[in-house]
């Protein structure tokens, strides 16, 4: 019998035992990281293989969405926590980055005030609010990108999981959380630019945000971040902890009676996921050039969930795939058939839940299972997402 994955322990499995799909996936990421910039820079405009710059930042945007989807998959697919408020962590990370970019504008704002962003100037604010201090320093901002979502997730999870709020109730209060944050950020008095949010960014680390070079840089960063996020996630899911998470998802009380502090496990993975979401947000903002409270809107968070569902929850690359496909569809159809777009999105939601309950990847897994039925008993009953070794 082969217990390699369990026996060798996560480190080994991370290096060698990484699932083949994982390897393929990372490979593709690497290729993309190389090809896209090359074709953008070297291949002539006219050529079919030229990737226009706007496509680069579009891809960059998709990649940050993919990372967000990954973070949702980590808690939903593996631990059964359906968060309808993950957009909040994404947006918070985004705001942290946005605040840094805002401070980088310096006195190039319309009112030429070296310290205050324009929106503060016309709200008659005389000095920077305390919570903006330090955001002019990149390291500080980046720390915040991680800390703020992390801490919020910790506090929220600490209460929710210890009180054993589960399932639907949890989903709904996560929704309430992001909704409350949205309302809060809409208020101009909050000092985050209200409805207009943060925009009109000039440069990041001294690089002009408008230049193609910077775009490519950000794109590559997104690729790396996604790869990094994927590695972390698969490290967790490969480890025994990953199996505990699945155990919690499938039989929470059993897990408890087996001596595991379920609430701490949930808290751990929730925080990790929130941090990943935050990083995704931080990458998203410089590439789209604006962050605004509507990122907090529950609708956005629900949409993220559907990306994961489409791709196949419980399979990390499934989440990535879903995010890619749905967003590509969004970009395409809002251009090609604007009127029909919502019908399609809505139809996709229904179709997936009815006919692809395990998502594209999951379903194809069963399908492949059917073909080469192995020692693992009748295939029809195998939940696709658990085939890990």
């Amino acid at each position, binding site marked *: 019998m082969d217990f390699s994955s369990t026996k060798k322990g996560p480190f080994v499995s991370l290096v060698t035992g990484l*699932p*083949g*799909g*994982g*390897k*393929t*996936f990372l*490979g*593709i990421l690497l290729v*993309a990281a190389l090809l896209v910039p090359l074709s953008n820079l070297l291949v002539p405009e006219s050529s079919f293989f030229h*990737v*226009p710059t*706007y*496509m680069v*930042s*579009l*891809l960059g*945007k*998709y990649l940050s969405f993919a990372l967000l989807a990954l973070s949702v998959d980590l808690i939903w697919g593996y631990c059964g926590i359906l968060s309808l408020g993950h957009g909040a962590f994404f947006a918070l990370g985004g705001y942290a980055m946005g605040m840094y970019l805002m401070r980088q504008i310096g006195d190039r704002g*319309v*009112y030429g*005030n070296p310290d205050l962003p324009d*929106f503060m*100037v*016309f709200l008659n604010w005389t000095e920077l609010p305390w919570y903006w201090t330090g955001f002019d320093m990149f390291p500080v901002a980046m720390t915040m990108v991680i800390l703020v979502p992390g801490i919020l997730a910790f506090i929220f999870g600490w209460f929710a999981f210890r009180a054993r709020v589960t399932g639907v109730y949890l989903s709904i209060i996560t929704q309430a959380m992001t909704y409350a944050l949205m*309302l809060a950020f*809409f208020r*101009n008095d909050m000092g985050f630019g*209200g*409805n*207009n*949010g943060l*925009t*009109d*960014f000039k440069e990041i680390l001294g690089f002009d*945000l*408008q230049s193609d070079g910077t775009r490519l840089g950000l794109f590559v960063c997104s690729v790396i971040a996604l790869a990094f996020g994927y590695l972390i996630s698969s490290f967790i899911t490969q480890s025994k902890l990953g199996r505990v998470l699945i155990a919690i998802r499938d039989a929470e009380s059993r897990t408890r009676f087996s001596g595991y502090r379920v609430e701490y496990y949930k808290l751990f993975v929730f925080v990790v996921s929130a941090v990943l979401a935050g990083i995704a947000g931080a990458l998203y903002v410089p590439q*789209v*050039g*604006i962050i*605004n409270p*509507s990122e907090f809107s529950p609708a956005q968070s629900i949409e993220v969930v559907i990306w994961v569902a489409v791709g196949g929850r419980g*399979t990390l*690359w*499934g989440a990535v*795939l879903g995010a*890619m496909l749905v967003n*590509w569809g969004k*970009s395409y159809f*809002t*251009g090609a058939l*604007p*009127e029909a*777009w*919502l019908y399609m999105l809505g139809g996709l939601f229904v179709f997936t839940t009815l006919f692809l309950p395990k998502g594209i*990847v999951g379903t*194809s*897994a069963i399908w*492949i299972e059917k073909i080469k039925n192995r020692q693992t008993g009748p295939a029809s009953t195998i939940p696709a997402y658990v*085939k890990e070794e």
Partner: protein
Amino acid sequence: MLGLRKVAGIMTGAAMLATSALGLGTAQAADDVIKVGVLHSLSGTMAISETTLKDAVLMMVDDLNKNGGLLGKKVEAVVVDPASNWPLFAEKARELIEVDKVDVVFGCWTSVSRKSVLPVFEELNSMLFYPVQYEGEESSRNVFYTGAAPNQQAIPAVEYLMSEEGGDVKRWVLAGTDYVYPRTTNKILEAFLKSKGVADEDIMISYTPFGHSDWQTIVSDIKKFGSEGKKTAVVSTINGDANVPFYKELGNQGIVASDIPVIAFSVGEEELAGLDTAPLVGHLAAWNYFMSVEDEENAEFIKKWHAFIGDDERVTNDPMEATYIGFQMWVQAVKQAGTTDVDAVRQAMYGQEVKNLTGGTAVMNTNHHLSKPVLIGEIQDDGQIETVWRTDGVVKGDAWSDFIPESAKLTSDWTYPFVCGGCEKAMF
């Protein structure tokens, strides 16, 4: 199990390539047509207002083609749906300019969408016509603002109410949705009112969230505020969606115009179509255009609109006129420049004149804002707004308000020697 992994991995890759392919596929522009981008939300919360403008542009493109197109070329409208999602506005703008290679874009509603696309237009040096009244405090080289600036709407409105004819109001409620346009407008008005010697305790400011629907408290507060013995008026910068419940509450709590008039800057025929105006007769609105204005141009325009939309009940409103003026000016400028090249057209735009639908002519100034007449009208029981007062001449749109100290010192002029959207002194 490797098979499965491969499949999945390859799918992901395919997705990426497909994505780029989308870019590659559509990335050729025909030379025999002139493309006009339309960037208005057709879904989501803003669709309520923006869809009409999309139709307006389509109508005018249609009209243009009927009359032999432009520079002998056919004009083609490229419509996209930013779905009331601000980042998507930026993405779509880029797509229009880079992929569809449009020569000009008509679109956006609310400042946030404009702010989100602004960097794109500046980077790619394209041209946007923004047709909605806004807070000013901006003048981009690549944007023409055909909607009203605060000094073309707010200030005249307040002056009217202060006048003997307007019922010399002494006490003011500034009610608005909590976003940049009301904030700035109210700030300007506050400064203006104080300059006219209105005391602090005679000004009440209240902000509400988007789509606010329960107005009981605020309306009864207004009622109380109005019962202090001085003539009181409400200056409403409440945004589209929230207006219907607001006016319904006003009507129900029996606040009639002759006691406490409400003057609104974002309520036009379109919004009124959504409610029963009988209880609202006499409340005011300040715009540069009313459908009810008796003028040949207007009659003509309305006729075309009804024909195009196939519904004689559909109303026209100010942003439509703004779109109309912008579009006509652009057409004239292109003809004059003999090309659609952005820089050439921009130069040609300055001083361009178009007949207002309300009589008189609108002129494009070098600060990218229009000179237009300002109208103040009273809501009628048929949902129309009847002009009760209008400026004698035209008012020049002012990008930088004189009532905000930081911006008072700034000038906007895109011609030599200034060549700047907001500077204290000329470039050259």
